[in-house]
Every structure is written in structure tokens, then in C-alpha cells.
């Protein structure tokens, strides 16, 4: 209840501020802070190349907004909420940063969003998976852009059950993210008439999955679901292929896989795995054109997070231009009023809880025969419409939603 009170006062305050400070870009500069893991486990999915995507967006926008300069500062969050919050506090309280982009580890995103709320600045979360970021941890000061655990489970699990994968065995990473994904998957599987017949929670991180794969094989389930991420997932898939999981008739379903992970595994090992993604570089001419430019800059194909950083930065700058202000509430409102249809998202829309909902895609990893190059890895099986992919507002625990 103190929370609602705080929200009310901040809403009133911001309403007043919007009135007073509107149509002004403070100190004639729009300053964007890029904060991400630059050296640890999440480096490749956003990291230094995410900064490249951000800078591409600023360049494409023209480098200036309504005559004001656009400046970028960046930092390594070291996957530590402490380090992240001291950096962001300094950015917003001392260095006049208006918007923080990147944001990968959930613990970092949650910590940063609280600071942004206190200081009434804006954050756009592109890398985090936790759906709690716009649920119990929602604030009027951040937007969650690319994906979260809800559509991951929704897309992959319902598709696999509908194709006959009735009984599931789950390998869950034993921390908040894994538990959330496990919960979402279980719900989706059961809703579609399937059943979770067993699960094992493995420590995070785990290198050797043979023991867990063996338990999954012994369970006799149709589907082995991987509710984990990053190196855990790639290690599990490697081991599954070594122990002949798919040959013995079980299906593998990975709930969170990035293009960089699949690239690391290779089509040989990862073939046939179904996954849900928010974007893929080889979907149409628009995505290909942008990805080619990205590859020229960085040498790799972009993940959905890279594309999301580019798209969200452009959306942000457009909103600043339209309102003529860098005030967080004014810009966020403008962004909520503007449907998103660009290279990254189709039917995109930012809801009042800060969740950007857009069409998601169910993809399957190609076989080596189908794949024509190192990065030619997915075929898109079907589109999951925006209004079905994400957690409906009626189930939201966010204080910004009137239920």
C-alpha cells in the first residue's frame, strides 16, 4: 500500500512536471547510458555488440534530436546489481543521463529500475528474461522490450504439446529465472492437455549434464524441456546429443536459446530443436538489410537482443523528437501511444505495465543439409500473435494496471 501511495504521488508529481517541464530537452542534450554485461556469461547476447547496435540507431536517426546533441556513455555491469546501481545512480544523479539501455541480468534490471523510478528517468530493458520485471517489479519508469519467460514457455511448450509431446520432463536451472520458466511451462503444458511427469533442478551453473540427462531418459517422457539458459543450455544439448536422447525417440525443447548459442552448438548438434524467438535476422528483406550492416560493424549476425536495442533506441529518439522533451513520463507516454512496426517488431505496442508486446515466432533449428551457412540456422514455423504471446493484463500483479 505504501507502494501505491508512492506511485500516486509520483504520478501526480510527474503530471505536474510534464505540465511544467514539457517541450524541453534539459541541457540541450539527450544522454543515453548503455549498461550491460561486457565481460561475463551474458556478454555475447548483448555486450559490446549491443553498444554497436545502439550507436547504429543514433547514426540512422541523424545524430541529433530537434537540434540537441545525443551523447552515449557506457559501462560494464559486471553482472552485479551493486556495481550496476552505483553506476546508474551516478549517471542519473550526477551526469544527467536521461535513458538507460541494454540491461541484461534480471537482478541488474530490477535494481536499476528502482533507481530510475526514484529519479524519474527512463530505462529500456532489452536483455532480461524475467517476466517479473513488468509484473511484480513494474515501475512507471521502465519498458521491457524484446521478450520474457512468458512467451518463451507459451510459444514452445504449446507448440510441442500440440504436436503430440504429451508427457514432459523438465531440467530446471535452480534459480529465480529457472523456477519462473518451469512454472510457466508447467501451466502451458497442462492447459494444452499435457503433463509434466518429472523434473530435476540442477545447480547454476552446471558443466556436466550426463547425470540429469540420464534421469530424463529413464523417465520415459516424450519431451525433455530445458528451463535454463546460456552455457547450461548448450551443455545440456551437447550431452543430450551425445547420449542419444533424440535417437531414442524423445524430443528436446529448449525454452531460451539465443542465436549465438545455436551458432555455438552448430546445426549438426542442435538440429530439430524448437524454440521461441522475438526476431530472427533472416526473416525478410528489412531484417536482412539491417543484419548485413550490423555484421559489417561487428563481424557476427545479431541476436534478437541486438535488434531490440536498435529498434527501442530509435523508438525512444522518435518519441523525444515528437514531444520535444526528454522527460521520462512524457517520453514513455508518447512511446505507449505509438504502435511499433519496424525492422524488429510487427504489431508492437507498449502496455501500461511497461511490457512491449509484439509478434513472436516459433522456430526450428535447421538440419546441416538445410543450412547454407554458419548463421543460416532457423526456419520460422509460425507466428505467435502479439495478443496471445504475452501474459494478459488481466493476470498482472503490476500496480500500474487497474484490475
Amino acid at each position, binding site marked *: 500500500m*505504501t507502494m501505491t501511495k508512492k506511485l500516486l504521488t509520483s504520478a501526480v508529481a510527474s503530471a505536474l512536471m510534464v505540465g511544467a517541464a514539457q517541450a524541453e530537452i534539459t541541457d540541450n542534450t539527450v544522454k543515453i547510458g548503455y549498461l550491460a554485461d*561486457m*565481460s561475463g556469461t551474458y556478454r555475447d547476447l548483448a555486450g*559490446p555488440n549491443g553498444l554497436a547496435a545502439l550507436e547504429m540507431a543514433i547514426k540512422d536517426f541523424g545524430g541529433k534530436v530537434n537540434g540537441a546533441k545525443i551523447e552515449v*556513455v*557506457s*559501462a*560494464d*555491469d*559486471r*553482472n*552485479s*546489481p*551493486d*556495481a550496476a*546501481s*552505483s*553506476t546508474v*545512480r*551516478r549517471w542519473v*544523479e*550526477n551526469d544527467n543521463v536521461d535513458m538507460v539501455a541494454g540491461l541484461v541480468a*534480471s*537482478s541488474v534490471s*530490477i*535494481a536499476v529500475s*528502482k533507481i530510475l523510478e526514484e529519479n524519474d528517468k527512463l530505462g529500456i530493458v532489452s536483455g532480461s528474461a*524475467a517476466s*517479473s520485471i513488468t509484473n511484480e*517489479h513494474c515501475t512507471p519508469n521502465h519498458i521491457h522490450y524484446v521478450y520474457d519467460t512468458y512467451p518463451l514457455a507459451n510459444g514452445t511448450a504449446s507448440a510441442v504439446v500440440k504436436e503430440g509431446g504429451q508427457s514432459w520432463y523438465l531440467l530446471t536451472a*535452480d*534459480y*529465480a*529465472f529457472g*523456477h519462473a520458466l518451469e512454472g510457466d511451462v508447467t501451466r502451458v503444458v497442462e492447459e494444452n492437455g499435457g503433463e509434466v511427469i518429472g523434473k530435476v533442478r540442477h545447480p*547454476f551453473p552446471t558443466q556436466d549434464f550426463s547425470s540429469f540427462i540420464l534421469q530424463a531418459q529413464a523417465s520415459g517422457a516424450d519431451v525433455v524441456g530445458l528451463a535454463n539458459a546460456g552455457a547450461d543450455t548448450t551443455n545440456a544439448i551437447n550431452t543430450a546429443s551425445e547420449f542419444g536422447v533424440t535417437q531414442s525417440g524423445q524430443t528436446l525443447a529448449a525454452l531460451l536459446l539465443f542465436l549465438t548459442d545455436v551458432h555455438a552448438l552448430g546445426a549438426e548438434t542442435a538440429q530439430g530443436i524448437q524454440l521461441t524467438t522475438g526476431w530472427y535476422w533472416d526473416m525478410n528483406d528489412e531484417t536482412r538489410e539491417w543484419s548485413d550492416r550490423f555484421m559489417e560493424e561487428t563481424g557476427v549476425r545479431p541476436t534478437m537482443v541486438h535488434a531490440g536495442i536498435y529498434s527501442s533506441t530509435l523508438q525512444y529518439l522518435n518519441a523525444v523528437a515528437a514531444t520535444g522533451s526528454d522527460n521520462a513520463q512524457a517520453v514513455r507516454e508518447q512511446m505507449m501511444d505509438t504502435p511499433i512496426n519496424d525492422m524488429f517488431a510487427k504489431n508492437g505496442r507498449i502496455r501500461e505495465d511497461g511490457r512491449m508486446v509484439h509478434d513472436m515466432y516459433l522456430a526450428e533449428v535447421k538440419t546441416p543439409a538445410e543450412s547454407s551457412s554458419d548463421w543460416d540456422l532457423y526456419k520460422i514455423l509460425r507466428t505467435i500473435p502479439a495478443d496471445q504471446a504475452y501474459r494478459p493484463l488481466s493476470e498482472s500483479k503490476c500496480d500500474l494496471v487497474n484490475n
Partner: protein
Amino acid sequence: MNQPIKSTDIHQSILDDQKSQDRRKMMINGVLLLVLLAAPLAIYPVFLMKILCFSLFAVAFNLLFGFTGLLSFGHAAFLAAGGYTTGYLLSNYSGLGTEMGIIAGTLVATGLGLAFALLSIRRQGIYFAMVTLALAQLVFFFFVQSEFTGGEDGMHGIPRGELFGLVSLEDNLNMYYFVLAVFIACYLLVQRVVGSPFGQVLKAIKQNEPRAVSLGYNVDRYKILAFVLSAALAGLAGSMKSVVFQLASLNDAHWHMSGEVILMTLVGGMGTLLGPVVGATFVVNVEYQLSQGPLRDWVDPILGAIFVLTVLAFRSGIVGEIQKFMRRNLS
């Protein structure tokens, strides 16, 4: 050359030396105090508080490592225990004053320290380090599994609240002077402890444990006391840190944190009073500055290089080397 030196001369010169050293120390401390009081005018207070919290953590660690000769590889457990306890209490019991939350956090860390000490104190050298590491890993496991810590997501939005129901700590400057006061009190406490007869026994244990035993000291009891005191101060550092940042996370409990405090102490100069403070200031600054600049992808290798360089070239640490230099050139 061959003149016999009278022992009284030596005594006198030692006394003089002691006096001039004391005077020098007082002066240094006075200047430092002024700097610390004025610092928030020039430097962002939250950053200063981060330095103070880590300084206190390193001072606590140094009491055990530098003065008693016991290398704990599990001090992260106390930092985290203090932080989580305080965070949990302040988030869930809004009537509780911030000072009570911090005291409770410190007490929990103290209790944990006692448990660690009882289980590890009879182990020697590397085995001692490894038992503390193992115990800290078990504590880490407990924090990962517990609901109340928020697991990997961490504990967020801890209210800073008010001090004694009077002073709002939401204000960064108030918070800073509170943290500074606690820090100085702890620093003086450690200074007192090190200079006391108790501290002399600790040093004797460090230099030659069998001799201390043969002199009739109950060495284990002294070691346990030193360990518990060190754990309590580390817990206090963690408690304050959780209030300052309004969050507590698994990073504080990870064994890398136990390694980092060793680095801070070593870089600053172990076994000196000021060393850990200088070391913590240095390491926190290096990490922060690097993570912002063009070298931000290279923080780890640069920290590694600092490790290597310190061990090879400045084994006495920054303060230790300065002391050596002064002794060589000023006496």
C-alpha cells in the same frame, strides 16, 4: 664502531621514535578526517559510501589476516549475512529503526562467525583457508535456496528509513555522515584492539604460534575472539552496504568477494591499519573507472595484472611500501 651501546640509549631512541611516529600518525589521521568530512562536496556521496563499506570490510578482514595471521577465504559469508539480515528486517518490519536493522545484521554475522570459528580454528595454514571457503560455500548454497534472499534476482528496494526515528537517511548526505561515523568508530576500535595487550597476543600468535602456546596463552580462545570480531565488523559492513544501496545480492556471498577482500588488503598493505582502507579505495576506484572507460571490457585482466604486480613487486602493499620508504629515508 666497536663502542658498546648502552641499552638505555636504545630504549630512549625507541621511545623517541615511537613518539615521533605517534605524532606523525595523529597528523595523518587528522588530515584524513578532514578530507573525509569534506569529501561529499567534491565526490558523489554514494560512491564514497561504497568505498567506506568496502574499507570497513577490508579492515575487518585485515584484523584476522594481517594481525593474527589467519587467512580466511570465506569472509564473503559474513558480508552477505549482515546484508541479507538487515535487508530482510527493514523490508518486512517497517516499525524497526534502521539502526536496529543494522545491529541485528551485525549480530547474525557475529553468530555465524562464531560457528565458523569453532569449526575451523584448529586447522592450520592452507587447511584453515579451505575450511572457511567450504563453510562459506555452504552458506552461499543456503542463500541461493532461501526464498527470502530473492535468490539470483537479489533483494531490492530495502528502505533506508530513519536513524533513531529522527534523521532521514533517504538523504545521501545524512546517510554519508552516518556511514562515516560508524566507519570511524570501527576503525578506532580496531586501532585500540591492535594496540591492546589482546592485540599483542594476536601478533605473537602470528609470529610464532608454538611460542605463544608455551608462554601459557590459550591460543585457540584468542584466535576465536579475533575471528568473531572480524566477522562482526564484516557483517556490519554488509549491513550498511545493503542500506546504502538498498539492495543485497548473491555477489556479496560469492567466493570471488572473499578473493576481492584479500586483494584489497594486500594491495593496501596487510598488517597495517591504514592499508586495507587505501587498498579498498584503490580497488573500488580501479573497478569503477575501468568499467566506465574505453577499457571496460578489460576489467578482469587488469585486476589480474594488479594481483600479479602486487605479489611480485609490492608485497608490503601501498602503505607498507610507503612506511618502508619513510623508515629508510627519515630515520
